[in-house]
């Protein structure tokens, strides 16, 4: 009995410490900043495309009437709010749309990020809740990333906000301070990506074709999706079966194998052909790219800084990093994501 009590006590303490370490360790916001730039750019592009058919999708006589939209959602979609339902005139519609585009542009650039990240999320959700019949995976990931970008200090790195900070007295600019909310935001993205892949795999395993190995063929033989003719795969059934199985097992085990240091690079490397394959062969470039942006949340900040700042030749954070001008924060073992000094 005492052994059981001891086990439960140690498990409780270990679980509590692990939980705190996982969620509440301050992190360098570099990865969050890069995700903001890329997700912001995708949000901007996604909504710029709405511009081409704005009245058709969001106007008074749009494809989706309010009655139809309410019929498609549980509880008549009464919690699926959208400010577009309040907009009646074309002028107001265009004004709201232009304002949203400005918000997404500011998010991408990292200007007044604390405010615009909240506005960007509210705008993104308003768009999707207005047109539930025109959505796909891209919109789910766009809104997911926008939600977490407003939780952390996403403008603390690679942003105009960062450039606007006054330089220190010695003319240098230090690295952004490690932040617990930056860690929280990145952790939420990571966990959410794991949930997505796990249930995507479970959904596939309910079907015969993913189990039997035909699914890859069925995907590339769909003319309405096809953007690159890969029907030569008909003569290579084994190749179709192998790529099908790899896709399923990669998705299924992503939530486990992306955490260990040894397997994380492999899982992230596999994400590139999987999502670029979807992007190039099935015409869903935006979806393929935004999934890769989601996977970027698993790349540690020191690696982000190493890749980006090595390439920076001009002014900014990166310059200081390689000219010795940057006032680095003292290395701290308490900082998640801090790169150890040599």
């Amino acid at each position, binding site marked *: 009995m005492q052994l059981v009590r001891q086990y439960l006590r140690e498990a409780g303490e270990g679980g509590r410490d692990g939980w705190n370490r996982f969620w509440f360790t301050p992190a360098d916001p570099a990865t969050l900043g890069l995700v903001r730039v890329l997700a912001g750019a995708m949000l901007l592009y996604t909504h710029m495309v709405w511009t081409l058919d704005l009245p058709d999708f969001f106007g008074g006589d749009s494809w989706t009437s309010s009655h139809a939209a309410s019929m498609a959602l549980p509880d008549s979609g009464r919690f699926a709010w959208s400010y577009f339902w309040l907009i009646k005139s074309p002028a107001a519609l265009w004004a709201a749309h232009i304002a949203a585009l400005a918000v997404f542009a500011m998010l991408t650039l990292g200007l007044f990020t604390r405010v615009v990240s909240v506005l960007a999320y509210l705008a993104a959700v308003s768009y999707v809740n207005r047109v539930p019949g025109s959505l796909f995976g891209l919109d789910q990931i766009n809104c997911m990333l926008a939600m977490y970008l407003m939780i952390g200090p996403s403008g603390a790195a690679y942003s105009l906000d960062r450039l606007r900070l006054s330089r220190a007295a010695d003319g240098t600019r230090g690295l952004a301070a490690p932040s617990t909310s930056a860690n929280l935001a990145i952790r939420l993205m990571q966990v959410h990506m794991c949930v997505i892949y796990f249930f995507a795999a479970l959904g596939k395993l309910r079907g015969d074709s993913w189990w039997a190995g035909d699914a890859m063929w*069925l995907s590339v033989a769909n003319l309405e999706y096809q953007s690159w003719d890969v029907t030569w795969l008909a003569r290579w059934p084994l190749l179709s079966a192998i790529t099908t199985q790899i896709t399923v097992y990669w998705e299924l085990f992503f939530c486990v194998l992306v955490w260990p240091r040894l397997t994380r690079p492999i899982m992230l490397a596999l994400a590139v052909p999987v999502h670029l394959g979807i992007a190039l062969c099935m015409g869903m470039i935006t979806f393929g790219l935004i999934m890769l942006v989601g996977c970027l949340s698993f790349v540690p900040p020191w690696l982000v800084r190493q890749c980006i700042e090595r390439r920076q030749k001009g002014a900014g954070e990166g310059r200081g990093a390689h000219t010795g001008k940057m006032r680095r924060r003292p290395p701290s073992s308490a900082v998640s994501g801090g790169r150890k000094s040599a």
Partner: protein
Amino acid sequence: MMRVIPDSAGGDESPRAPTAVSWSPRVRFIVSLALVWHLVALLVGPISSPPSMLGERLQSIYAPYLQAAYLNHGYKFFGPDPGPSHLVRYVVETSDGERIEGTFPDRKTHRPRLLYHRHFMLSEFLVGLAGPWDPRFDWHNQPLSKSQEAYIESYAHHLLAVHGGKRVTLYLVEHRLATPQEVIEGMRLDDSQLYRSRKLGSFES
């Protein structure tokens, strides 16, 4: 030599390095409660699709949060099986006797690709709203669900407004996927044998 990526989110290079958490215990406790709520919410959408008893119970609690935050997703991308695709063909008749025919999605008019995909989802979403299969009817005569009727009427209303029509008729076109053997034997993916069509309804302005 391969450099391994650290195991923490942030990526402290030494996995055994001592770490210090920030925020006071009270703040951590409150945030932890919010995290648990949110993490459970992430699971509610997927376990409700297809419907499950647990999913339904949790939906009754979480629906406001999931809908308001746009989190109610099953994440079943191309699952359980990649199936046939669907298009909607329409014929609009104007008051001066002109007939305007079209299809959505249409690669020739819906550009760039993302806009094409928006229109593609309109037709696919309509099919996704179908009720349970009724064995008394074949595909061409399957009864439409209430949600499908609402969307068809909405599409019809839009087409009448855009084209200034007095009457519109809509058809659902299903495009079956060719088998590898059919393609090897020379069938094209747009072969007419792969298509079937059913009337969805006629509407007047």
